[in-house]
């Protein structure tokens, strides 16, 4: 089946198998390997991307379902060499160790802060429940998101 998608501002048209998962399309067809795969049951969230502005797990979407969609992956988050405040927060607050869950975690946080620009710690912990991290114990991820929230509020 033919699909047309815009990923990080670039429009692509490809023939894909109907059963091809969006995450495999991004990684294997577009070579955007920043979107990771950590499980096969949609639990870990490593594959989270923005699909029409909303965070989704790209292992749970078929590529054909993304036909006509606007997608942002971790590679497209920084603009003009400027890190997104969430990326900056993860760096500043040591929100990552091995970095494997990080792209998905960041994409989830970006979506969340759009909806809730001034979250409490509890709200942050709840918001990232669909993203698993095995290294950090989440404490510095929470701080990273708090940093980003503050920065985005003061910037707007």
């Amino acid at each position, binding site marked *: 089946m033919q699909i047309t998608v815009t990923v990080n501002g670039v429009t692509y048209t490809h023939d894909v*198998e109907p*059963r*091809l998962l969006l995450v*495999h399309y991004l*990684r294997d067809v577009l*070579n*955007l*390997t*920043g*979107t*990771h*795969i*950590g*499980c*096969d*049951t949609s*639990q*870990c969230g*490593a594959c989270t991307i923005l699909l029409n502005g909303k965070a989704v797990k790209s292992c749970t979407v078929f590529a054909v379902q993304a036909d006509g969609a606007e997608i942002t*992956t*971790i*590679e497209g*988050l*920084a603009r003009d060499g400027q*890190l997104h405040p969430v*990326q900056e927060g*993860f*760096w*500043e607050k*040591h929100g*990552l*160790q*091995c*970095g*494997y*869950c*990080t*792209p998905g975690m*960041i994409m989830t946080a970006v979506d969340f802060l759009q909806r809730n620009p001034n979250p409490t*710690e*509890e709200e*942050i*912990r*709840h918001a*990232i*429940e669909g*993203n*698993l*991290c*095995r*290294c*950090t*114990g*989440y*404490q*510095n*991820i*929470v701080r990273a998101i708090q940093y980003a929230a503050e920065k985005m509020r003061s910037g707007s």
Partner: protein
Amino acid sequence: MAVTKLFGAPIKRREDPRLITGRGNFTDHIRLPGTLVMAIKRSPHAHARIVRIDTSKARVMRGVVAVYTGQDLIDKLAPVPCAWLVPDSDLKVPTYRAVAVDKVRYVGDAVAVVVAEDRYVAQDALEAIEVEYEPLPAVVDQEKALEAGAPQLYEEVPNNLAFHWKLHSGDFDAAWKEAEVRLSRRLINHRLIPTAMEPRGALAAYNPGTGELTIWCTSQNPHIHRLLLSAVTGLPETRIRVIATDVGGGFGSKIPMYAGEMIAAALSRDLGRPIKWIETRQENYVATIHGRDHVQYVDIAAQRDGTITGVRVRAYANLGAYLSTAAPGIPTWLFGLMLQGPYAIPVIHCDVFGVLTNTTPTDAYRGAGRPEATYLLERMVDLLARELRMDPVEIRRKNFIPKDRFPYTAPSGLVYDSGDYEATLNRALELVDYDNLRHQQAELRQQGRYIGIGFSTYVEVCGLAPSQAAGAMGFQGGLWESAIVRVHPTGKVTVFTGSNPHGQGEETTFAQLVADELGVPFEDVEVIHGDTEMVPFGMGTYGSRSTAVGGAALVAACRKVKEKAQRIAAHLLEVAPEDVVFENGRFFVKGAPDRGMTIQEVALQAYLAWKLPRDIEPGLEATHFWDPTNNTFPFGCHICVVEVDPETGKVTFLQYVAVDDVGNVINPMIVDGQVHGGIAQGLAQAVYEYAAYDANGQLLSASLMDYAIPKASMLPSFSVDRTVTPTPVNPMGVKGAGETGTIASTPAVVNAVIDALAPFGIEHIDIPLTPERIWRAVLERSR
């Protein structure tokens, strides 16, 4: 040039820019033209004879390149090796085939392999392979596996007993006889699944033209993997290159040699094309190692005043169906040697039975043996305190090794390097405001609310080394670490380390060390790891050893570089080397600071070599293989405060305070992060995680849906603090921080929950303390 001291600075990680922008270099990201995808068909039975395998349908599927059974691979791959041959234990190492031949022995054992053009076809082809099994009775529990009449995994391992290891120090019978208080308990330290977020995998590319195999794989120790791959494929070590630059967490699970990586290597050679194999999470759960899984019978001998006079342990360690690479060493040396903990216990008597069962093989999981020893001891100390009606703080103080007794020779034979156990305890008590907390607890109990305060005062052995000890323990390798420091003509520095960090941040901390040593800017230091073609040799990252051992190698190599640079500078400044002083990256004549040159200028001269004396070689680099004289022994005190709802069994975390002493700290931000993550994993063992098998050997918790690794909402924030007692074992005085949190936290949490439940007369509940178990225990006592 102003150079600030970087040791101790919370510098942001240089690993992060690539990882936060999606430009990491993980194994599954590597793409080579012509790559085929490999998939493994795994046994659904825990124990069965393979009657017949029919691969004919799979072979003719479009896009399938080849299908292999165990029989097809016998001549292509030697068995999976075991590299820790624990001596004096009657160890039996049964044959461990990468792909099973006659019999499968656990759910997840490989039975066939497909190579196809893409992953979807490979998956379809796996489904098309028909395997006829004759199921055999399975045994999952290590105690049952030793009983007469139990199913036997191997003819050559009678009673499924792989080894019986002993450590008897002092006369326990006498201690027991003379004891005023005797305490006996059966404790379970249940099975866990490491669950690194990046599954394991490999991309193996054999070039038939050169006879070289390059393999990208998820490895904590690329050189060990190269050595083992050479042994199993028959390819010379010099023709194998192992690359593992970005690895998505390991926690021990990426130390061993596994079937998947071996098969990929052999099949790339067989087919002459690159082969990629990436396990699914479900495969990761059944076919990547598990950890812990002990049943322990513990006897404690003590005096009425709380003095512990002896510990006796009989432990049954579940090794799973095969002996994984380091498996025999974990429940023996890394467990038994630490049974005295931070206490001046004079007598240790330990017997460990290593048992084979129809389960996934176990091996090193974060802490590896030390959490099992620490949980045992910390739980027993609390039980003893309860028995004697002593405060858990006082009983610990009573038994601590006093700070003036270091270096301390423990009954197990280890020599503890340095310590001040009271200091971490005192600091932690201060942070939780202990006296006040006890008042609060009493008041709340009046209101029918149950809070508990749990302690864990631990010491662990890390910085795994030295090589002589490794040899005595039967570890089939040295435990040193290597480093090359290369100063380029421009004065920029590349360092090559045999450590292979995979989340621990040593690209940053090692650059801090080197920048300080050489007096060069941090930005000028490049850290290279994880590629056997670039790094001379390395033992890898595990056992909290990278900074203590790998970092020390770097510092020693830097000092060799400086020594040579000093001789060159002296020659060029026309003074004797001893008249040259080095400070902040600059060599100058003693008493004449104007007459000098920077290390960068010296480096250029070293490479130009126009004016070097004949006895100085051109170039400026040094190699050092650092073999420490001893391990390091971090310690600390963790205090956990919980509230337990007896109606539901729910545990709420109110406070978690960790005061650790890991010696000097190079980057406190990174160490704090290690501690947080470590606590999370140990806390999860206490209340959440449990690798559950049914009686037939089916893993019930075989996905992230069923195995409860903590989510953000399931964890509290941790308050982390430190005391600093440097180790004399390495020039930086650092001990190691990767495992402290995991080792310490499980008993702190459990002791807190049990303390909360004290009014119900509950003394112990086996972990994990799920709401159901707590609720049942309360219900039982309320009847």
